[in-house]
């Protein structure tokens, strides 16, 4: 399940580039969680569902309806954001733990649909052939890169695109954080009633926060699709959100840059398990890696709830 980096052993550099790609994709994914959990105080456990909706919408528009990618990408982002609104409208009114369950259930429903609505999603066979345009761009990028002496590794174009995307989204979010809009989100997280008393419609702001996070999740979904070239339900398993949460708490709540730190650290540890020669079958190695994710969550929560780069008071959330 987690073995999305099925690289042939092409050498260490390509291997770690591949790890960097996945770490970058998860950084983008977790930026959405940071916006929801760290900045707004809503525990969104359905982020993987929004990632799936974005990626499936993109692939269906391109493969089934032959939309050009430049139109399919914004359209699919819009679909994911709309799904974010649909999930948020009823659920952000609820208490924190109910919200967590509802969003997780929403993500499970998305996965159920991906598996069962075979006419739309291809079921467990998945969808192929949505990345023709990307292949062209990749070849062009490799040409440019080799002209400047950097063209040896196939993974470099995606690596650059992923981290460039991360940088852009992070800068936008950091900028948003300092706008009146971002300050209201923070106020809602600190004390929703007080924000309401100041005339701010906390409900509307929370819905906007979730929609924006869903859009960011969709973007992570496209990049993950390009990395694995096949979209099937397992690519977007609902519990990937929890890997995002491990990254989130490692990096620290409330710090957008911490997300990159947490993601690189987690994926470095997870991938390093490949170099330890363990007498284990493939499913056991996969289990060991997710066991590490769980241990990271528990240890950070028990020992250093503010994460590596976070401030302690960021963990004091209201139920």
């Amino acid at each position: 399940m987690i073995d999305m980096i099925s690289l042939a052993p092409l050498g260490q550099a390509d291997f770690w580039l591949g790890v960097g790609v996945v770490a970058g994709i998860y950084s983008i994914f977790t930026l959405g969680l940071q916006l929801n959990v760290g900045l707004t105080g809503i525990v969104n456990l359905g982020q993987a569902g929004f990632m799936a909706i974005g990626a499936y919408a993109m692939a269906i528009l391109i493969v089934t309806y032959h939309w050009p990618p430049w139109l399919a990408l914004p359209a699919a982002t819009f679909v994911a954001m709309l799904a974010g609104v649909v999930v948020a409208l009823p659920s952000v009114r609820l208490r924190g733990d109910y919200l967590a369950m509802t969003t997780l259930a929403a993500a499970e429903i998305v996965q159920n649909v991906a598996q069962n609505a075979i006419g739309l999603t291809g079921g467990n066979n998945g969808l192929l052939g949505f990345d023709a345009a990307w292949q062209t761009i990749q070849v062009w990028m490799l040409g440019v890169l080799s002209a400047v002496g950097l063209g040896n590794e196939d993974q470099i174009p995606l690596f650059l695109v992923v981290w460039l995307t991360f940088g852009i989204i992070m800068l936008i979010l950091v900028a948003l954080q300092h706008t009146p809009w971002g300050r209201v989100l923070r106020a809602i997280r600190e004390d929703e009633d007080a924000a309401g008393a100041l005339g701010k419609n906390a409900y509307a702001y929370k819905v906007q926060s979730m929609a924006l996070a869903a859009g960011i999740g969709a973007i992570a979904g496209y990049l993950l699709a390009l990395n694995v070239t096949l979209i099937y339900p397992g690519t977007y398993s609902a519990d990937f959100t929890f890997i995002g949460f491990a990254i989130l708490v490692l990096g620290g709540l409330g710090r957008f840059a911490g997300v990159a730190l947490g993601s690189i650290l987690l994926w470095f540890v997870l991938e390093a398990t490949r170099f330890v020669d363990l007498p284990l079958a493939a499913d056991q190695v996969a289990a060991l890696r997710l066991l590490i994710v769980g241990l990271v969550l528990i240890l950070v929560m028990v020992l250093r709830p503010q994460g590596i780069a976070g401030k302690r008071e960021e963990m004091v959330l209201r139920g």
Partner: protein
Amino acid sequence: MSSTASAEDAALSSVNHEVSLSTGSRALVIGAATIAVALLLVAVKGYQPAAQATVNGLVTGTFFALGAVGLALVYGVLRLVNFAHGDFLTFGAYIALACNTLLSLPIIIATVIATVTTALMAALLELLLWRPMRTRRAGHLQLLLTAIGLAYVIRNGIQLVAGADPRSLRVNVTSAVSFLGGLRLGTTELAVVLVGLVVLVLVAILLSASRLGREMRALADNLNLAEVAGVNTGRVIIATWLVAGGLAGLAGVLVGAAVGVLTPNFGFELLLGLFAATILGGIGNAYGALAGGLLLGLAEEWSTLFIDPSWKLAVGFVILILTLLIRPNGLLGRPGLK
């Protein structure tokens, strides 16, 4: 000495009184409505398919109820949404599997060992993890994420040891009984349902009639008040985990026996159903969870009369979401309970 004891009894009996009064009449209405729906389905879809779906629903409902009661007890007493509860079921099932297949113990002994081991694990986690975190005044989010991490550790620990291949307990899954004009039920399923229902009745008696049960409900109602009234909260919390863990372990074995196959993921896959059952009955309300579990099992199986069974899981999630939207305090919960 005797005056504090009687004050405590008074506080406890007031709790008891309130619960039985508010839930009793509503439970009757819900029961009547359920029977009405069942009769309607028989009228629309014919006797055999509708009655068979009802029987299947009661089987599934028994698992949901057993799992959900523990989830509700823990939530009620500690306000902890235990995301690892589904994996408690898996843990119990795999302990039974190890006893049953590796050690060749009979299934009944394996079930008892699994129930006890899971109960002890839950209590041990309270001592090693949850109590220290409460002492440090850990926030909601901290506890939630710890529970999610724990779920990962248990599930993947099981997969690390046992692998991901589907496994089976040594039970008879082929023979079946026919009854009431063409309805079928596997003999193992029948045994499972009987065990499940007997245990559920025992739990209901424990909660309503025993001192421990009243103390648990007093804690669920108001922990500080119960403490002031002289209830030994630390002891009751341990007892709550023992009951919740034991029920989860037992439910896991029963699911494994009735369904026939086990994977390390099955408990987590049941978890949202358990949440749905818990919320349907009113979160933190153990009787409600019991009823919610049975209702959810019926709803999922009844849905297969109209749509493809592969959507069964989604039906459970939709019920979860609808309940939260329409009646977040559940069918048996009191409005305004926070």
